[in-house]
């Protein structure tokens, strides 16, 4: 679709033409999706950010007056929401990060060997966050090494060790209660 068509659709949308507005949003989705797919790894992330962008376009549509091209306006909003997403995503990631010094000792230890049996704490493991529960189940029920778990779950070995460490901490807390 040509730029002029998008501007004309937006012009009609601002006048309250719902069909033109829906068509414009569909077209916007069409050209924004490849832009987001290049920058985000997961398909569900692309859809989440795309929904945020469409909502923002809806909220900010009064700032488009038809006197300038539509695409740069839509891309500006897309970039803004994408940055918001990254800020939230990496901010969250950092909040959940574990200090290396905290796990230094346990990194050297084989995380797949433990004094307790899987069956004895199975109930507690199942109540852990899903990812941690899966990791402990693979390690303790199926006897996988951290590297094998990492390969199966598409994670880094160090990430598996960190997650296992967190899970052990949680379990210890629960079992001590």
């Amino acid at each position, binding site marked *: 679709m040509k730029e002029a068509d998008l501007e004309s659709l937006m012009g009609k949308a601002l006048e309250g033409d719902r069909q033109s507005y829906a068509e414009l949003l569909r077209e916007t989705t069409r050209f924004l999706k490849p832009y987001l797919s290049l920058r985000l790894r997961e398909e569900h992330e692309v859809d989440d950010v795309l929904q945020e962008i*469409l909502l923002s376009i809806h909220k*900010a*549509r009064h700032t488009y007056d038809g006197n300038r091209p539509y695409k740069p306006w839509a891309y500006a909003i897309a970039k803004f929401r994408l940055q918001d997403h990254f800020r939230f995503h990496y901010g969250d990631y950092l909040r959940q990060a574990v200090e290396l010094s905290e796990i230094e000792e346990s990194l050297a230890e084989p995380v797949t060997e433990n004094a307790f049996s899987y069956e004895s704490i199975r109930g507690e493991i199942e109540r852990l966050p899903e990812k941690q529960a899966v990791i402990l189940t693979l390690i303790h029920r199926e006897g996988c090494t951290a590297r094998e778990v990492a390969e199966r779950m598409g994670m880094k070995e160090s990430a598996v060790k960190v997650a296992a460490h967190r899970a052990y901490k949680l379990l210890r807390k629960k079992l001590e209660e």
Partner: protein
Amino acid sequence: MESIEDLIESLAGDAEPVRPARNPFLTWLKWTGMAAAYVFFALLISGHRNDLAERLHSPIFIAEMASLVFMVCSAALSASLLSFPDLYQRGRIVYLPLLSAACFAVVMMVAWRLDNPPSPLPVHSYQCTLSIALLSLLPMFSIFRSLRKNASTHAGWAGVNAVLYAFGTGAIWLRLEEATNSIAHVLEWHYLPMLLVGIIGLWLGKKLLKW
């Protein structure tokens, strides 16, 4: 993709006619006009400095006022453009306040060198910063209220410019009201606080212009 289609249907269902935001250049004209009127009425109430006619013959004073007015106008224009997600596709103009601040700094350096021997310092000090801050409250409230109606994607920089516009308006008023020729005083208590105010503006922008 189904949920996106649902969202599109729902947004289209909500699409009432919308009046587009005012052109940012018209908004800028409105804000600069308001600032001029505000300074004029403030001077009517507070009175102007008794040596104003004489000072208006001093090239360095004229340069100082002109560069200050340039800074206020450029901050208003920048804030107005920054209230649009795409900066109204005039991205370069939003950095004009940096140029105006550089011009202002040069003028003040020249004024500092020309103030030799230094003019006597007035007896007051922080009261000037306080007066400017108080006078700038109304323009600041007005500009933030206006900015919040749009959708800024550069909230921090928009906040800096909004606050500079308001504080600069107050600084113009005080320079025309207070009979002091001490450049050291005006630098310390009129203009340097602008730097701090700029940081406050950055924070305010991020807080108030979220959408």
